[in-house]
Protein backbone atom coordinates (compact mmCIF):
# COMPACT_ATOMS: atom_id res chain seq x y z
CA UNK A 1 0.00 0.00 0.00
CA UNK A 2 2.80 2.42 0.89
CA UNK A 3 4.44 1.77 -2.49
CA UNK A 4 1.19 2.62 -4.20
CA UNK A 5 0.83 5.81 -2.21
CA UNK A 6 4.18 7.04 -3.54
CA UNK A 7 3.15 6.80 -7.16
CA UNK A 8 2.00 10.20 -8.35
CA UNK A 9 -1.21 10.53 -10.29
CA UNK A 10 -0.96 11.65 -13.89
CA UNK A 11 -1.74 15.30 -13.27
CA UNK A 12 0.10 15.65 -9.97
CA UNK A 13 2.80 18.32 -9.94
CA UNK A 14 5.95 17.36 -8.04
CA UNK A 15 8.44 19.92 -6.74
CA UNK A 16 11.65 19.18 -8.64
CA UNK A 17 13.67 21.04 -6.02
CA UNK A 18 12.08 19.51 -2.92
CA UNK A 19 14.42 19.38 0.08
CA UNK A 20 14.79 15.79 1.23
CA UNK A 21 14.68 14.55 4.80
CA UNK A 22 18.37 14.20 5.70
CA UNK A 23 19.98 10.78 5.82
CA UNK A 24 23.49 11.17 7.24
CA UNK A 25 26.00 8.79 5.67
CA UNK A 26 23.59 7.69 2.93
CA UNK A 27 26.34 7.89 0.28
CA UNK A 28 29.39 7.28 2.48
CA UNK A 29 30.12 3.90 0.93
CA UNK A 30 30.48 5.18 -2.61
CA UNK A 31 34.01 4.66 -3.83
CA UNK A 32 34.61 5.19 -7.55
CA UNK A 33 37.23 2.85 -9.08
CA UNK A 34 40.74 4.18 -8.39
CA UNK A 35 43.16 4.84 -11.24
CA UNK A 36 45.84 2.18 -11.70
CA UNK A 37 49.47 3.26 -11.25
CA UNK A 38 50.01 3.32 -15.02
CA UNK A 39 47.05 5.69 -15.51
CA UNK A 40 48.45 7.99 -12.84
CA UNK A 41 52.03 7.96 -14.07
CA UNK A 42 51.09 8.74 -17.65
CA UNK A 43 49.73 12.08 -16.43
CA UNK A 44 52.80 12.75 -14.31
CA UNK A 45 51.21 11.82 -10.96
CA UNK A 46 52.64 9.29 -8.49
CA UNK A 47 51.37 5.75 -9.07
CA UNK A 48 50.48 5.20 -5.45
CA UNK A 49 50.36 6.85 -2.04
CA UNK A 50 53.91 7.93 -1.10
CA UNK A 51 55.13 7.34 2.46
CA UNK A 52 55.10 11.04 3.39
CA UNK A 53 51.85 11.65 1.56
CA UNK A 54 50.39 13.87 4.30
CA UNK A 55 53.17 16.42 3.84
CA UNK A 56 52.93 16.17 0.06
CA UNK A 57 49.17 16.79 0.15
CA UNK A 58 49.44 19.74 2.53
CA UNK A 59 52.29 21.23 0.47
CA UNK A 60 50.21 20.82 -2.70
CA UNK A 61 47.36 22.66 -1.03
CA UNK A 62 49.80 25.45 -0.16
CA UNK A 63 50.97 25.60 -3.77
CA UNK A 64 47.37 25.93 -5.00
CA UNK A 65 46.61 28.61 -2.39
CA UNK A 66 49.56 30.59 -3.75
CA UNK A 67 48.61 30.08 -7.38
CA UNK A 68 44.85 30.51 -7.30
CA UNK A 69 43.71 33.52 -5.29
CA UNK A 70 40.06 32.55 -5.71
CA UNK A 71 40.69 29.21 -4.00
CA UNK A 72 41.91 30.92 -0.82
CA UNK A 73 39.10 33.50 -0.91
CA UNK A 74 36.52 30.72 -1.26
CA UNK A 75 37.99 28.90 1.74
CA UNK A 76 38.13 32.04 3.89
CA UNK A 77 34.87 33.75 3.05
CA UNK A 78 32.11 31.23 3.88
CA UNK A 79 29.89 32.58 6.69
CA UNK A 80 27.73 29.44 6.92
CA UNK A 81 24.60 31.30 5.88
CA UNK A 82 23.09 28.12 4.49
CA UNK A 83 21.93 29.54 1.15
CA UNK A 84 23.66 26.74 -0.76
CA UNK A 85 22.55 23.82 1.37
CA UNK A 86 19.53 22.74 -0.66
CA UNK A 87 20.80 23.78 -4.10
CA UNK A 88 22.85 20.71 -5.09
CA UNK A 89 21.14 18.06 -7.21
CA UNK A 90 23.18 15.37 -5.44
CA UNK A 91 21.95 16.54 -2.06
CA UNK A 92 18.37 16.71 -3.33
CA UNK A 93 18.72 13.23 -4.81
CA UNK A 94 20.72 11.45 -2.12
CA UNK A 95 19.66 13.26 1.11
CA UNK A 96 23.25 12.84 2.35
CA UNK A 97 24.10 16.08 4.21
CA UNK A 98 27.73 15.84 3.09
CA UNK A 99 26.42 16.53 -0.40
CA UNK A 100 25.34 19.99 0.72
CA UNK A 101 27.78 22.33 -1.01
CA UNK A 102 28.94 23.92 2.24
CA UNK A 103 29.56 20.51 3.78
CA UNK A 104 31.49 19.41 0.72
CA UNK A 105 33.63 22.55 0.90
CA UNK A 106 34.19 22.00 4.63
CA UNK A 107 35.78 18.61 3.96
CA UNK A 108 38.68 20.56 2.48
CA UNK A 109 38.24 23.80 4.41
CA UNK A 110 38.79 22.00 7.72
CA UNK A 111 42.21 20.80 6.55
CA UNK A 112 43.04 24.24 5.14
CA UNK A 113 42.30 25.76 8.54
CA UNK A 114 44.55 23.28 10.33
CA UNK A 115 47.63 24.11 8.28
CA UNK A 116 47.10 27.57 6.86
CA UNK A 117 45.23 29.67 9.45
CA UNK A 118 46.33 31.00 12.82
CA UNK A 119 43.28 29.67 14.66
CA UNK A 120 43.57 26.22 13.13
CA UNK A 121 47.29 25.90 13.85
CA UNK A 122 46.93 26.67 17.56
CA UNK A 123 43.30 25.93 18.46
CA UNK A 124 42.17 23.37 15.90
CA UNK A 125 39.14 22.12 17.82
CA UNK A 126 37.77 25.62 18.31
CA UNK A 127 37.69 26.32 14.59
CA UNK A 128 36.72 22.91 13.25
CA UNK A 129 40.19 22.19 11.87
CA UNK A 130 41.25 18.63 11.02
CA UNK A 131 44.57 16.91 10.40
CA UNK A 132 45.23 15.48 6.96
CA UNK A 133 44.64 11.80 7.77
CA UNK A 134 43.84 8.73 5.69
CA UNK A 135 40.22 8.86 6.88
CA UNK A 136 39.97 12.46 5.68
CA UNK A 137 41.54 11.52 2.36
CA UNK A 138 39.06 8.66 1.91
CA UNK A 139 36.19 11.00 2.71
CA UNK A 140 37.45 13.45 0.11
CA UNK A 141 37.65 10.68 -2.46
CA UNK A 142 34.07 9.67 -1.73
CA UNK A 143 32.43 13.09 -1.71
CA UNK A 144 34.55 15.03 -4.20
CA UNK A 145 33.48 12.34 -6.64
CA UNK A 146 29.84 13.16 -5.91
CA UNK A 147 30.24 16.71 -7.26
CA UNK A 148 29.75 17.33 -10.95
CA UNK A 149 31.34 20.79 -10.71
CA UNK A 150 28.13 22.23 -12.13
CA UNK A 151 28.32 25.45 -10.07
CA UNK A 152 24.61 25.77 -9.40
CA UNK A 153 25.34 26.34 -5.71
CA UNK A 154 27.65 29.25 -6.53
CA UNK A 155 24.76 31.14 -8.13
CA UNK A 156 22.97 31.20 -4.78
CA UNK A 157 26.05 31.90 -2.61
CA UNK A 158 26.03 35.57 -1.55
CA UNK A 159 29.85 35.49 -1.69
CA UNK A 160 29.99 33.63 -4.98
CA UNK A 161 31.94 30.71 -3.51
CA UNK A 162 32.51 28.23 -6.29
CA UNK A 163 32.38 24.65 -5.01
CA UNK A 164 33.62 23.43 -8.40
CA UNK A 165 36.96 25.19 -7.82
CA UNK A 166 37.26 23.53 -4.43
CA UNK A 167 36.31 20.17 -5.86
CA UNK A 168 38.90 20.56 -8.65
CA UNK A 169 41.56 21.52 -6.10
CA UNK A 170 40.71 18.50 -3.95
CA UNK A 171 41.06 16.19 -6.92
CA UNK A 172 44.36 17.80 -7.86
CA UNK A 173 45.68 17.34 -4.33
CA UNK A 174 44.54 13.70 -4.37
CA UNK A 175 46.24 13.11 -7.72
CA UNK A 176 49.43 14.62 -6.31
CA UNK A 177 49.51 11.77 -3.76
CA UNK A 178 48.64 9.04 -6.24
CA UNK A 179 44.91 8.87 -5.48
CA UNK A 180 43.20 9.42 -8.82
CA UNK A 181 39.97 8.27 -10.37
CA UNK A 182 40.12 5.55 -13.00
CA UNK A 183 37.41 7.03 -15.22
CA UNK A 184 38.99 10.47 -15.72
CA UNK A 185 42.64 9.50 -15.66
CA UNK A 186 42.44 6.46 -17.91
CA UNK A 187 40.54 8.58 -20.44
CA UNK A 188 43.10 11.39 -20.27
CA UNK A 189 45.79 8.81 -20.99
CA UNK A 190 43.87 7.84 -24.12
CA UNK A 191 43.81 11.47 -25.24
CA UNK A 192 47.58 11.62 -24.77
CA UNK A 193 48.16 8.38 -26.68
CA UNK A 194 45.45 8.34 -29.31
CA UNK A 195 43.86 11.78 -29.36
CA UNK A 196 40.40 11.33 -27.91
CA UNK A 197 38.44 10.08 -24.92
CA UNK A 198 37.14 7.04 -26.80
CA UNK A 199 40.55 5.84 -27.88
CA UNK A 200 39.38 5.95 -31.50
CA UNK A 201 42.51 5.69 -33.67
CA UNK A 202 42.75 7.75 -36.92
CA UNK A 203 42.16 4.67 -39.08
CA UNK A 204 38.94 3.85 -37.22
CA UNK A 205 37.83 7.48 -37.30
CA UNK A 206 38.36 7.59 -41.07
CA UNK A 207 36.38 4.40 -41.58
CA UNK A 208 33.58 5.59 -39.28
CA UNK A 209 33.25 8.90 -41.12
CA UNK A 210 33.13 7.12 -44.48
CA UNK A 211 30.40 4.93 -43.09
CA UNK A 212 28.46 8.00 -41.97
CA UNK A 213 28.84 9.62 -45.39
CA UNK A 214 27.27 6.48 -46.84
CA UNK A 215 24.38 6.76 -44.38
CA UNK A 216 23.88 10.41 -45.29
CA UNK A 217 23.85 9.56 -48.97
CA UNK A 218 21.32 6.76 -48.41
CA UNK A 219 19.13 9.21 -46.53
CA UNK A 220 19.37 12.26 -48.78
CA UNK A 221 20.75 11.06 -52.09
CA UNK A 222 23.40 13.75 -51.70
CA UNK A 223 27.14 13.50 -51.28
CA UNK A 224 27.36 15.14 -47.88
CA UNK A 225 30.95 15.03 -46.76
CA UNK A 226 32.55 14.44 -43.39
CA UNK A 227 36.05 15.58 -44.32
CA UNK A 228 39.04 14.51 -42.22
CA UNK A 229 42.47 16.14 -42.07
CA UNK A 230 41.88 18.36 -45.11
CA UNK A 231 44.69 20.88 -45.36
CA UNK A 232 43.62 24.35 -46.34
CA UNK A 233 40.03 23.92 -45.18
CA UNK A 234 38.56 27.11 -43.80
CA UNK A 235 36.88 25.68 -40.70
CA UNK A 236 38.24 23.17 -38.21
CA UNK A 237 35.38 21.47 -36.36
CA UNK A 238 36.41 20.14 -32.96
CA UNK A 239 33.74 17.95 -31.49
CA UNK A 240 33.47 15.36 -28.70
CA UNK A 241 34.53 11.89 -29.83
CA UNK A 242 31.16 10.62 -28.57
CA UNK A 243 29.78 12.31 -31.72
CA UNK A 244 31.53 9.55 -33.70
CA UNK A 245 30.21 6.72 -31.56
CA UNK A 246 27.12 7.17 -29.44
CA UNK A 247 23.45 7.94 -29.95
CA UNK A 248 21.96 10.56 -30.17
CA UNK A 249 25.35 12.25 -30.58
CA UNK A 250 25.90 10.90 -34.10
CA UNK A 251 22.60 12.43 -35.20
CA UNK A 252 23.93 15.79 -34.05
CA UNK A 253 27.11 15.28 -36.08
CA UNK A 254 24.90 14.59 -39.11
CA UNK A 255 23.22 17.92 -38.41
CA UNK A 256 26.53 19.82 -38.41
CA UNK A 257 27.52 18.15 -41.69
CA UNK A 258 24.21 19.07 -43.31
CA UNK A 259 24.53 22.70 -42.22
CA UNK A 260 28.04 22.93 -43.68
CA UNK A 261 26.80 21.21 -46.84
CA UNK A 262 23.82 23.55 -47.19
CA UNK A 263 26.02 26.64 -47.32
CA UNK A 264 28.92 25.03 -49.18
CA UNK A 265 31.34 25.61 -46.29
CA UNK A 266 34.92 24.44 -46.49
CA UNK A 267 35.43 22.43 -43.31
CA UNK A 268 37.32 19.55 -41.82
CA UNK A 269 37.61 17.36 -38.77
CA UNK A 270 41.06 16.47 -37.45
CA UNK A 271 42.49 13.15 -36.34
CA UNK A 272 44.84 15.07 -34.02
CA UNK A 273 42.14 17.21 -32.42
CA UNK A 274 39.56 14.43 -32.47
CA UNK A 275 38.25 15.38 -29.03
CA UNK A 276 36.63 18.60 -27.88
CA UNK A 277 36.21 17.46 -24.29
CA UNK A 278 38.93 18.20 -21.78
CA UNK A 279 38.86 16.09 -18.62
CA UNK A 280 41.93 18.01 -17.45
CA UNK A 281 39.44 20.52 -16.08
CA UNK A 282 37.58 17.87 -14.09
CA UNK A 283 40.73 16.81 -12.26
CA UNK A 284 41.79 20.42 -11.70
CA UNK A 285 45.12 19.91 -13.45
CA UNK A 286 46.20 22.97 -15.42
CA UNK A 287 49.08 21.06 -17.00
CA UNK A 288 46.84 18.25 -18.23
CA UNK A 289 44.21 20.68 -19.44
CA UNK A 290 46.90 22.55 -21.35
CA UNK A 291 48.35 19.40 -22.91
CA UNK A 292 44.90 18.37 -24.14
CA UNK A 293 44.19 21.88 -25.49
CA UNK A 294 47.49 22.06 -27.35
CA UNK A 295 46.25 19.34 -29.70
CA UNK A 296 43.64 21.79 -31.00
CA UNK A 297 46.25 24.46 -31.60
CA UNK A 298 48.59 21.97 -33.28
CA UNK A 299 45.83 20.70 -35.57
CA UNK A 300 44.70 24.22 -36.51
CA UNK A 301 48.26 25.21 -37.42
CA UNK A 302 49.00 21.97 -39.25
CA UNK A 303 45.84 22.20 -41.35
CA UNK A 304 46.13 25.96 -41.89
CA UNK A 305 42.51 26.66 -41.00
CA UNK A 306 41.07 30.16 -40.63
CA UNK A 307 38.54 29.49 -37.92
CA UNK A 308 37.69 26.92 -35.25
CA UNK A 309 34.16 25.79 -34.40
CA UNK A 310 33.23 23.59 -31.45
CA UNK A 311 30.55 20.90 -31.59
CA UNK A 312 27.97 20.12 -28.91
CA UNK A 313 30.07 19.56 -25.78
CA UNK A 314 29.48 21.38 -22.50
CA UNK A 315 32.81 21.43 -20.75
CA UNK A 316 34.70 21.70 -24.05
CA UNK A 317 32.86 24.94 -24.58
CA UNK A 318 33.74 26.19 -21.12
CA UNK A 319 37.43 25.41 -21.69
CA UNK A 320 37.29 26.93 -25.19
CA UNK A 321 35.31 30.03 -24.28
CA UNK A 322 36.87 30.81 -20.94
CA UNK A 323 40.42 29.44 -21.03
CA UNK A 324 41.64 28.45 -24.49
CA UNK A 325 43.30 31.70 -25.43
CA UNK A 326 45.56 31.76 -22.40
CA UNK A 327 45.92 27.97 -22.25
CA UNK A 328 47.04 27.35 -25.81
CA UNK A 329 47.02 30.78 -27.45
CA UNK A 330 47.51 33.19 -28.93
CA UNK A 331 45.35 32.16 -31.86
CA UNK A 332 46.41 35.18 -33.89
CA UNK A 333 46.93 32.97 -36.94
CA UNK A 334 43.16 32.60 -37.37
CA UNK A 335 41.08 35.00 -39.45
CA UNK A 336 40.12 37.83 -37.05
CA UNK A 337 36.86 38.49 -38.92
CA UNK A 338 35.34 35.41 -37.30
CA UNK A 339 34.55 34.93 -33.60
CA UNK A 340 37.02 32.73 -31.76
CA UNK A 341 36.16 30.31 -30.45
CA UNK A 342 32.82 29.78 -32.14
CA UNK A 343 30.09 27.36 -31.08
CA UNK A 344 28.27 25.31 -33.71
CA UNK A 345 25.00 26.74 -32.36
CA UNK A 346 26.26 30.29 -32.98
CA UNK A 347 27.24 29.29 -36.50
CA UNK A 348 23.90 27.67 -37.30
CA UNK A 349 21.81 30.41 -35.68
CA UNK A 350 23.73 33.07 -37.59
CA UNK A 351 22.92 31.28 -40.87
CA UNK A 352 19.25 30.94 -39.87
CA UNK A 353 19.04 34.66 -39.17
CA UNK A 354 20.59 35.44 -42.53
CA UNK A 355 17.96 33.24 -44.18
CA UNK A 356 20.58 30.84 -45.53
CA UNK A 357 19.02 27.71 -44.03
CA UNK A 358 15.49 26.51 -44.76
CA UNK A 359 13.52 24.06 -42.66
CA UNK A 360 10.45 21.91 -42.91
CA UNK A 361 9.41 22.03 -39.27
CA UNK A 362 6.73 19.40 -39.79
CA UNK A 363 9.51 16.80 -40.04
CA UNK A 364 9.85 17.19 -36.28
CA UNK A 365 6.14 17.09 -35.55
CA UNK A 366 6.49 13.78 -33.70
CA UNK A 367 8.46 15.62 -31.03
CA UNK A 368 7.08 17.77 -28.24
CA UNK A 369 10.32 19.22 -27.12
CA UNK A 370 12.11 20.93 -24.27
CA UNK A 371 15.73 21.96 -23.76
CA UNK A 372 18.12 21.00 -20.99
CA UNK A 373 20.69 23.75 -20.33
CA UNK A 374 24.05 22.09 -19.74
CA UNK A 375 25.84 23.51 -16.72
CA UNK A 376 29.18 24.35 -18.32
CA UNK A 377 27.51 26.27 -21.11
CA UNK A 378 24.94 27.92 -18.85
CA UNK A 379 27.23 28.96 -16.00
CA UNK A 380 30.78 28.45 -17.22
CA UNK A 381 30.64 30.28 -20.52
CA UNK A 382 28.48 32.41 -22.75
CA UNK A 383 27.64 32.48 -26.44
CA UNK A 384 26.60 34.99 -29.08
CA UNK A 385 26.82 38.73 -28.55
CA UNK A 386 24.39 39.47 -25.72
CA UNK A 387 24.29 38.29 -22.10
CA UNK A 388 22.08 35.22 -21.92
CA UNK A 389 22.59 34.25 -25.56
CA UNK A 390 23.89 30.86 -24.37
CA UNK A 391 20.29 30.18 -23.29
CA UNK A 392 18.50 31.80 -26.22
CA UNK A 393 20.53 30.59 -29.19
CA UNK A 394 19.95 26.83 -28.70
CA UNK A 395 16.27 27.51 -27.96
CA UNK A 396 16.00 29.69 -31.06
CA UNK A 397 17.43 26.87 -33.16
CA UNK A 398 14.93 24.41 -31.70
CA UNK A 399 12.03 26.80 -32.29
CA UNK A 400 13.20 27.30 -35.88
CA UNK A 401 13.21 23.56 -36.50
CA UNK A 402 10.36 22.23 -34.38
CA UNK A 403 6.72 23.29 -33.98
CA UNK A 404 6.24 22.22 -30.37
CA UNK A 405 8.66 23.74 -27.89
CA UNK A 406 8.12 24.20 -24.12
CA UNK A 407 10.38 25.20 -21.24
CA UNK A 408 10.66 23.40 -17.92
CA UNK A 409 10.24 25.12 -14.50
CA UNK A 410 12.16 28.38 -14.46
CA UNK A 411 13.94 27.39 -11.24
CA UNK A 412 15.54 24.49 -13.12
CA UNK A 413 16.70 26.08 -16.38
CA UNK A 414 19.04 28.70 -17.81
CA UNK A 415 21.39 30.18 -15.21
CA UNK A 416 20.01 27.95 -12.44
CA UNK A 417 19.74 24.81 -14.55
CA UNK A 418 19.97 21.54 -12.64
CA UNK A 419 22.77 19.25 -13.73
CA UNK A 420 22.14 16.05 -15.68
CA UNK A 421 23.87 14.25 -12.81
CA UNK A 422 26.76 12.90 -14.89
CA UNK A 423 29.12 15.83 -15.41
CA UNK A 424 32.57 16.51 -14.00
CA UNK A 425 33.86 12.93 -14.19
CA UNK A 426 30.80 11.23 -12.72
CA UNK A 427 29.65 9.61 -15.99
CA UNK A 428 30.91 6.15 -15.10
CA UNK A 429 29.04 2.94 -14.35
CA UNK A 430 30.66 2.59 -10.93
CA UNK A 431 28.91 5.83 -9.89
CA UNK A 432 25.53 4.82 -11.32
CA UNK A 433 23.78 5.22 -7.96
CA UNK A 434 25.05 8.81 -7.69
CA UNK A 435 24.08 9.47 -11.30
CA UNK A 436 20.55 8.16 -10.99
CA UNK A 437 19.86 10.03 -7.74
CA UNK A 438 21.54 13.23 -8.95
CA UNK A 439 19.31 13.28 -12.01
CA UNK A 440 16.13 13.32 -9.97
CA UNK A 441 15.51 17.12 -9.98
CA UNK A 442 15.86 17.27 -13.75
CA UNK A 443 13.75 14.18 -14.29
CA UNK A 444 11.05 15.52 -11.98
CA UNK A 445 10.95 18.83 -13.86
CA UNK A 446 10.73 16.94 -17.15
CA UNK A 447 8.03 14.68 -15.71
CA UNK A 448 5.96 17.73 -14.76
CA UNK A 449 6.24 19.06 -18.30
CA UNK A 450 5.18 15.70 -19.69
CA UNK A 451 2.05 15.88 -17.54
CA UNK A 452 1.32 19.53 -18.28
CA UNK A 453 2.21 19.84 -21.95
CA UNK A 454 2.65 16.30 -23.19
CA UNK A 455 6.35 16.85 -23.80
CA UNK A 456 8.00 13.73 -25.19
CA UNK A 457 11.64 14.65 -25.76
CA UNK A 458 14.44 16.80 -24.41
CA UNK A 459 17.36 18.18 -26.42
CA UNK A 460 20.83 19.08 -25.14
CA UNK A 461 24.17 20.40 -26.39
CA UNK A 462 26.53 18.32 -24.28
CA UNK A 463 27.87 14.82 -24.95
CA UNK A 464 27.92 13.96 -21.25
CA UNK A 465 24.32 15.11 -20.71
CA UNK A 466 23.17 13.07 -23.72
CA UNK A 467 24.90 9.89 -22.56
CA UNK A 468 23.83 10.36 -18.96
CA UNK A 469 20.18 10.76 -19.97
CA UNK A 470 20.15 7.74 -22.30
CA UNK A 471 21.25 5.65 -19.31
CA UNK A 472 19.15 7.08 -16.51
CA UNK A 473 15.92 8.07 -18.28
CA UNK A 474 14.58 4.49 -18.19
CA UNK A 475 14.87 4.61 -14.37
CA UNK A 476 12.44 7.53 -14.46
CA UNK A 477 9.94 5.97 -16.83
CA UNK A 478 11.23 7.69 -19.97
CA UNK A 479 12.44 5.87 -23.07
CA UNK A 480 16.23 5.98 -23.37
CA UNK A 481 15.92 7.79 -26.71
CA UNK A 482 13.90 10.65 -25.22
CA UNK A 483 17.12 12.68 -25.24
CA UNK A 484 18.15 14.34 -28.51
CA UNK A 485 20.94 16.46 -29.94
CA UNK A 486 19.99 20.03 -30.87
CA UNK A 487 21.54 19.53 -34.30
CA UNK A 488 19.56 16.33 -34.67
CA UNK A 489 16.47 18.55 -34.93
CA UNK A 490 18.36 20.62 -37.49
CA UNK A 491 19.26 17.44 -39.36
CA UNK A 492 15.67 16.21 -39.45
CA UNK A 493 14.12 19.47 -40.64
CA UNK A 494 16.73 21.03 -42.91
CA UNK A 495 15.76 21.35 -46.57
CA UNK A 496 18.72 20.49 -48.78
CA UNK A 497 18.62 21.31 -52.45
CA UNK A 498 18.32 18.16 -54.55
CA UNK A 499 17.68 15.81 -51.63
CA UNK A 500 15.38 12.82 -52.08
CA UNK A 501 12.15 12.83 -50.14
CA UNK A 502 12.64 10.69 -47.04
CA UNK A 503 8.91 10.01 -46.75
CA UNK A 504 9.16 7.71 -49.76
CA UNK A 505 11.81 5.62 -48.06
CA UNK A 506 10.51 2.64 -46.13
CA UNK A 507 13.87 1.88 -44.54
CA UNK A 508 13.30 1.64 -40.81
CA UNK A 509 16.82 2.66 -39.93
CA UNK A 510 16.96 6.19 -41.24
CA UNK A 511 19.77 8.07 -39.53
CA UNK A 512 18.12 10.65 -37.35
CA UNK A 513 15.09 8.58 -36.57
CA UNK A 514 14.86 8.17 -32.80
CA UNK A 515 14.94 4.39 -32.76
CA UNK A 516 18.62 3.74 -32.19
CA UNK A 517 19.81 3.31 -28.68
CA UNK A 518 22.96 4.32 -26.88
CA UNK A 519 26.24 2.54 -27.20
CA UNK A 520 26.11 0.44 -24.12
Amino acid sequence: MSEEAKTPTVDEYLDPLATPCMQPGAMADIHTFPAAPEHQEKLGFPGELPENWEQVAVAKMGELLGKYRGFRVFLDSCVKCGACTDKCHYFMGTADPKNMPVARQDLLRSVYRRYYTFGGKYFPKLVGARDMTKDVLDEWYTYFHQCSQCRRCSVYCPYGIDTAEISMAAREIMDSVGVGQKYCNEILGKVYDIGNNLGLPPKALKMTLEDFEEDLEDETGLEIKMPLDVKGAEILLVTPSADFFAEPHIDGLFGYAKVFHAVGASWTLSSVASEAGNFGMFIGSYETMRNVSMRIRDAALELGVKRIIFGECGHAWRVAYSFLNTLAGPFDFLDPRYPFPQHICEYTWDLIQKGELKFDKSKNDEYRLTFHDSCNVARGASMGSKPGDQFEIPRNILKATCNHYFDMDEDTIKEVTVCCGGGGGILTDDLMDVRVKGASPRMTALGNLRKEKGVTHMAAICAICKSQFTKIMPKYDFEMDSILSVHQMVSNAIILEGAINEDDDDDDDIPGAPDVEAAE
Partner: protein
Amino acid sequence: MAYELNGQTIEHDEEGYLTDLGQWTEDLAAILAKDEGIEMTDEHWEVVNFLREYYDEYQIAPAIRVLVKALKKTMGKEKGSNKYLYTLFPYGPAKQACKIAGLPKPTGCI
Protein backbone atom coordinates in the same frame (compact mmCIF):
# COMPACT_ATOMS: atom_id res chain seq x y z
CA MET B 1 40.66 -10.25 -10.03
CA ALA B 2 40.95 -13.19 -12.38
CA TYR B 3 39.01 -15.92 -14.16
CA GLU B 4 40.14 -19.52 -13.73
CA LEU B 5 39.98 -21.74 -16.80
CA ASN B 6 41.67 -25.14 -17.22
CA GLY B 7 44.14 -24.27 -14.49
CA GLN B 8 44.97 -20.98 -16.17
CA THR B 9 44.57 -17.61 -14.45
CA ILE B 10 43.17 -14.88 -16.68
CA GLU B 11 43.26 -11.36 -15.24
CA HIS B 12 40.33 -8.98 -15.56
CA ASP B 13 39.50 -5.46 -14.41
CA GLU B 14 36.99 -4.31 -11.77
CA GLU B 15 34.08 -4.89 -14.12
CA GLY B 16 35.17 -8.23 -15.53
CA TYR B 17 36.76 -7.04 -18.80
CA LEU B 18 39.95 -8.90 -19.75
CA THR B 19 43.17 -7.01 -19.14
CA ASP B 20 44.97 -8.94 -21.90
CA LEU B 21 42.72 -9.68 -24.84
CA GLY B 22 45.35 -12.09 -26.16
CA GLN B 23 44.19 -14.54 -23.47
CA TRP B 24 40.70 -14.78 -24.95
CA THR B 25 39.46 -18.18 -26.13
CA GLU B 26 36.06 -19.46 -27.16
CA ASP B 27 35.92 -21.51 -23.96
CA LEU B 28 36.50 -18.36 -21.94
CA ALA B 29 33.80 -16.55 -23.92
CA ALA B 30 31.34 -19.24 -22.91
CA ILE B 31 32.22 -18.67 -19.23
CA LEU B 32 31.93 -14.90 -19.61
CA ALA B 33 28.56 -15.32 -21.30
CA LYS B 34 27.33 -17.58 -18.52
CA ASP B 35 28.32 -14.94 -15.94
CA GLU B 36 26.18 -12.49 -17.90
CA GLY B 37 23.29 -14.95 -17.97
CA ILE B 38 23.55 -15.42 -21.72
CA GLU B 39 23.22 -18.70 -23.61
CA MET B 40 25.45 -18.36 -26.67
CA THR B 41 23.66 -19.03 -29.98
CA ASP B 42 24.93 -18.72 -33.56
CA GLU B 43 23.65 -15.14 -33.61
CA HIS B 44 25.58 -14.30 -30.43
CA TRP B 45 28.72 -15.74 -31.97
CA GLU B 46 28.14 -13.76 -35.15
CA VAL B 47 28.19 -10.53 -33.14
CA VAL B 48 31.13 -11.57 -30.97
CA ASN B 49 33.18 -12.63 -33.97
CA PHE B 50 32.39 -9.42 -35.82
CA LEU B 51 33.48 -7.39 -32.80
CA ARG B 52 36.76 -9.28 -32.57
CA GLU B 53 37.49 -8.90 -36.27
CA TYR B 54 36.66 -5.21 -36.16
CA TYR B 55 38.83 -4.71 -33.10
CA ASP B 56 41.67 -6.57 -34.74
CA GLU B 57 41.51 -4.16 -37.67
CA TYR B 58 40.75 -0.87 -35.89
CA GLN B 59 41.87 -1.31 -32.23
CA ILE B 60 38.47 -0.21 -30.94
CA ALA B 61 34.96 -1.61 -30.78
CA PRO B 62 32.62 -0.29 -33.49
CA ALA B 63 29.88 2.24 -32.84
CA ILE B 64 26.54 0.46 -32.43
CA ARG B 65 25.37 2.07 -35.67
CA VAL B 66 28.33 0.57 -37.52
CA LEU B 67 27.72 -2.83 -35.91
CA VAL B 68 24.03 -2.80 -36.83
CA LYS B 69 24.84 -1.89 -40.41
CA ALA B 70 27.37 -4.69 -40.73
CA LEU B 71 24.98 -7.23 -39.23
CA LYS B 72 22.25 -6.11 -41.61
CA LYS B 73 24.52 -7.20 -44.43
CA THR B 74 25.33 -10.62 -42.94
CA MET B 75 22.17 -11.50 -40.98
CA GLY B 76 19.48 -9.69 -42.94
CA LYS B 77 17.36 -6.67 -42.18
CA GLU B 78 15.30 -8.19 -39.39
CA LYS B 79 18.22 -9.40 -37.29
CA GLY B 80 20.45 -6.51 -38.26
CA SER B 81 18.65 -4.08 -36.01
CA ASN B 82 19.39 -2.34 -32.78
CA LYS B 83 16.34 -3.89 -31.20
CA TYR B 84 17.44 -7.39 -32.08
CA LEU B 85 20.90 -6.69 -30.67
CA TYR B 86 19.28 -5.81 -27.38
CA THR B 87 17.37 -9.09 -27.36
CA LEU B 88 20.70 -10.88 -27.75
CA PHE B 89 22.52 -8.72 -25.19
CA PRO B 90 19.92 -7.19 -22.87
CA TYR B 91 22.38 -5.00 -20.94
CA GLY B 92 23.63 -3.35 -24.10
CA PRO B 93 25.52 -4.84 -27.02
CA ALA B 94 28.62 -2.72 -26.46
CA LYS B 95 28.84 -3.52 -22.80
CA GLN B 96 27.94 -7.21 -22.75
CA ALA B 97 29.08 -8.25 -26.20
CA CYS B 98 32.44 -6.48 -25.79
CA LYS B 99 33.00 -8.22 -22.49
CA ILE B 100 32.21 -11.64 -23.92
CA ALA B 101 34.42 -10.89 -26.94
CA GLY B 102 37.29 -10.08 -24.58
CA LEU B 103 37.51 -6.46 -25.70
CA PRO B 104 38.07 -3.50 -23.39
CA LYS B 105 35.04 -1.47 -22.42
CA PRO B 106 34.56 1.64 -24.56
CA THR B 107 35.29 4.79 -22.53
CA GLY B 108 34.54 8.48 -22.78
CA CYS B 109 31.38 10.55 -22.81
CA ILE B 110 29.29 7.59 -23.89
